[in-house]
């Protein structure tokens, strides 16, 4: 069994504080939320900010399970969590899958004035985070980078800005967690 924390995840900032791999099963979403809530609480997130971060990650995982892996229960999803100190205190979450051809940016996103089920996930993710950016992995599949800052870090800049925001430094590109599997 290879090292579950691959050296390839090393970046100039060092390895992420938490790195885990889950199977693509909806019943595991609650466990991820609990872990994330505990980590965010230690970083200093308030209840609402913590809840919004949980929602963003939960929606990302749900999209991968439903649309990326089409509910197959035995596919892998990798998450890494890193505490941010600069430019602002917060958390960066990277979520990776290995599904070829799945681009969450192409998921149907409904007009909020249109009353129908579905199409809300991507909108919710963008609404509650400071950075929400999808990028293709070199090995196939997608990587989602989410950043959210603590509310007291800069009250004049709330969530809702997307990955085009210039005041957010680009996260380092990590290599494949699959290398360690």
């Amino acid at each position, binding site marked *: 069994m290879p090292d579950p924390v691959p050296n390839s995840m090393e970046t100039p900032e060092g390895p992420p504080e938490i790195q885990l791999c889950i199977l693509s099963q*909806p*019943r595991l*979403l609650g466990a991820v939320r609990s872990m994330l809530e505990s980590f965010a609480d230690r970083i200093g997130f308030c209840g*609402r900010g913590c*809840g*919004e971060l949980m929602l963003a990650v*939960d929606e990302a995982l749900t999209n991968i399970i439903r649309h990326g892996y089409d509910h197959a229960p035995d596919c892998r999803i990798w998450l890494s969590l890193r505490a941010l100190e600069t430019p602002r205190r917060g958390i960066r979450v990277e979520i990776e899958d290995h599904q070829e051809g799945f681009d969450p940016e192409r998921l149907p996103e409904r007009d909020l004035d249109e*009353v129908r089920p579905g199409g809300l996930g991507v909108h919710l993710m963008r609404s509650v985070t400071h950075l929400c950016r999808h990028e293709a992995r070199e090995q196939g599949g997608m990587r989602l980078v989410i950043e959210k800052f603590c509310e007291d870090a800069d009250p004049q800049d709330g969530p809702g800005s997307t990955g085009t925001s210039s005041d957010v430094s680009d996260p380092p590109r990590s290599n494949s967690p699959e290398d360690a599997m």
Partner: protein
Amino acid sequence: MPGDDMTITERTVGDGIVLVPEGDIDLSRSPQLQARLAKALSNKPARIVVDLSKVPYMDSSGVATLVQGLQHCQRAGCELVIGALHPKVRSIFEIAKLTEIFRIVDDVDSGD
């Protein structure tokens, strides 16, 4: 995984049915809520109230279930009311503009 099922209690209030789910509603549990809504609607009540006071977390799959339930109720001539929103869940409703399409009450039994 043990403990994955969600408890949903049901009671009759006047000519309506009150459903009280307990716990987080996410992709793993929203199908249970969807099934209970359909079962309640099959009894042809005048009103279904979903009491969310014991739901501290809901994602977009739960929201979609409620929107779908609203559409089914409207077609059946039944009113779907949301009751006692937890503050964290209320924020999701506000982002999704659902506070404008659902009747949301604080007191589930009186409907106020």
